[in-house]
């Protein structure tokens, strides 16, 4: 599976008490600051938590709808802030994954909110933030603040009482150093468990991708079938019908005009040879013989030989590439070569193929004029073909050349 997004590096790297140095102190101070902010945000969280329950309970009344329109966006903002801060500390990117409410009005939108699991998890987060989360976040600033206050008191006010407090409070600094990372981690992991829906988002994205590529493949398959049917109808089928007509007429003329009959038969023979050639080329378009006999490497070499310019072929492919992938890549390479011949004005071309880490990579390059359009019919057709196998096409074609087209198709299990 592809990486969803680059992960930011986490602020909270470890809960170990060592090392005791500047960066460790800085990160603990940042955790304490965040915890202090979270403590302060517990109050609005409590208000919103109560507001959420009220608006759901008053849902049927207009006041419930109005309340929801105030509470839910505010909750979204508060939860979003926690997602960003928690994400920065944990080194993850958290996704809200709310159900889509675009195109709904303020009356119908709350209906959708009511059935959206992600919104209810937000409400769960509000309650946690106002209760257990509040306690977890209160401790680090309290542990840090106590000795600081006592020491300040001793220094300014003086007297045995303040000094005793400062002396007794000293160990709480040690406790602060020891427990702050663990408390922060506990708080933020719980937040993340409630707030992060990036797993669902990832799956949703993947499903959309699969659905699109499947539709493309079906379209492509149907178009291929139409093309084959058309090729047969216009080519072999028509020629064989013409042979029949010529032979039929020859039969009729055999007695009366043997010269003409003989000419018709010669013509029929030529046409029948052409019909066979047509059939062969249709077969080549469905499953080329060289590909069938020698696999992708042999098929690509055969393709290179048919091109009217020198093509260097270096295919180092192990066995085991699935046949449909071989076929898709073969036709993709054929399209690349025909683009090179038609548009590039190249003097030479090259093809390389390797499999590394379960990824089949074929590069088609030429020294032509460049400027190939990745959105053009040929190249986007290749992209559609390969998308069926989760493959990708990357085109590098600066004006003036050279052009390289990189085809990548995952082949799990092929070494």
């Amino acid at each position: 599976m592809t990486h969803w997004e680059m992960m930011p590096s986490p602020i909270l790297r470890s809960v170990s008490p060592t090392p005791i140095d500047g960066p460790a102190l800085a990160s603990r101070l940042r955790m304490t600051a965040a915890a202090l902010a979270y403590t302060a945000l517990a109050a609005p969280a409590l208000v919103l938590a109560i507001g959420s329950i009220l608006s759901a309970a008053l849902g049927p009344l207009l006041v419930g709808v109005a309340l929801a329109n105030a509470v839910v966006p505010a909750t979204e903002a508060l939860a979003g802030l926690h997602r960003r801060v928690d994400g920065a500390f944990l080194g993850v990117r958290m996704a809200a994954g709310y159900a889509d409410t675009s195109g709904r009005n303020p009356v119908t939108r709350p209906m959708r909110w009511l059935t959206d699991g992600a919104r209810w998890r937000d409400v769960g987060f509000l309650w946690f933030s106002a209760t257990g989360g509040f306690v977890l976040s209160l401790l680090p600033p309290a542990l840090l603040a106590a000795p600081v206050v006592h020491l300040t008191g001793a220094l300014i006010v003086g007297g045995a009482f303040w000094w005793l407090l400062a002396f007794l409070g000293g160990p709480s600094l040690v406790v602060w150093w020891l427990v702050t990372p663990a408390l922060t981690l506990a708080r933020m992991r719980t937040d993340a468990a409630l707030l992060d829906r990036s797993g669902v988002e990832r799956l949703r994205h993947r499903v959309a991708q699969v659905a699109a590529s499947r539709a493309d493949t079906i379209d492509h398959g149907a178009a291929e079938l139409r093309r084959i049917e058309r090729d047969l109808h216009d080519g072999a089928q028509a020629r064989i019908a013409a042979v029949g007509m010529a032979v039929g007429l020859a039969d009729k003329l055999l007695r009366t005009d043997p010269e003409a009959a003989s000419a018709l038969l010669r013509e029929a023979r030529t046409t029948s040879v052409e019909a066979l050639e047509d059939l062969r080329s249709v077969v080549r378009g469905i499953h080329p013989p060289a590909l069938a006999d020698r696999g992708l490497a042999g098929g690509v070499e055969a393709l290179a030989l048919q091109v009217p310019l020198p093509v260097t072929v270096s295919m180092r492919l192990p066995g085991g590439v699935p046949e449909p992938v071989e076929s898709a890549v073969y036709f993709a390479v054929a399209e690349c070569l025909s683009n090179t011949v038609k548009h590039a004005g190249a003097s030479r071309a090259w093809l390389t193929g390797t499999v590394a880490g379960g990824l089949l990579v074929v590069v088609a390059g030429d020294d032509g004029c460049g400027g190939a359009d990745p959105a053009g019919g040929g190249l986007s057709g290749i992209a559609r073909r390969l998308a069926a196998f989760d493959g990708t096409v990357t085109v590098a074609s600066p004006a003036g050349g050279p052009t390289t087209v990189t085809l990548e198709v995952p082949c799990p299990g092929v070494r």
Partner: protein
Amino acid sequence: MPGRPLRILLAEDQALLLAGLTRILEAGGCRVVATARSGPELAAALADPALTALDPDVAILDVRLPPTFSTEGLVAAVEARARRPGLPVLVLSQYVEPLYAGELLAGGHGAVGYLLKDRVSDVDAFLESVHRVADGGTALDPEVVAALVRSARRRRPLDRLTDREREVLTLMAEGRSNAAVADRLFVSEKAVGKHTTSIFAKLDLPPTPDDNRRVLAVLAWLRDERA
């Protein structure tokens, strides 16, 4: 072939087949007075007053023509027959589709043919079909008839018919006269007459003396959806 040569309007997009057909038709004493290579060309040729000027005795059309390569030829034929009922039309195709035959026959006027292109190679039979359609008869490909008989058999039994009667029914449905059926089955015309009378009685079809009306009745019975 009596009188003047048959005047033919020929629509076929493939040069090879257009040439082959023209050659065969002219060898059979017909005259190709106009050709069309695409749907729009055919529509222009079939449009009045062009049709009056050309005065074709029969239009021979490929079902599938450019630009869309679907059923332009058939559509043009049905439209032309709507404007001029009974215009003789012989449709040629590389495949048979009983549905299309039904659309052509829908008017009930006869003068319709629907043949596979393969049949053209039996030159004499093809030319006979052309003349039959020009004379207001029908010429349906045996494959079309076979498909109609198959589906009719599924819907309701043809079992009441004897094997011989089914053979006669099939040939009759292709558009052949009693004499032609007799010829094909190596029996007397009188025997065929008996069979047809019996078939008509068993299928509850009204008896009619006219060959072509009989054929149309049989076809209507075969493709009747309501049964």
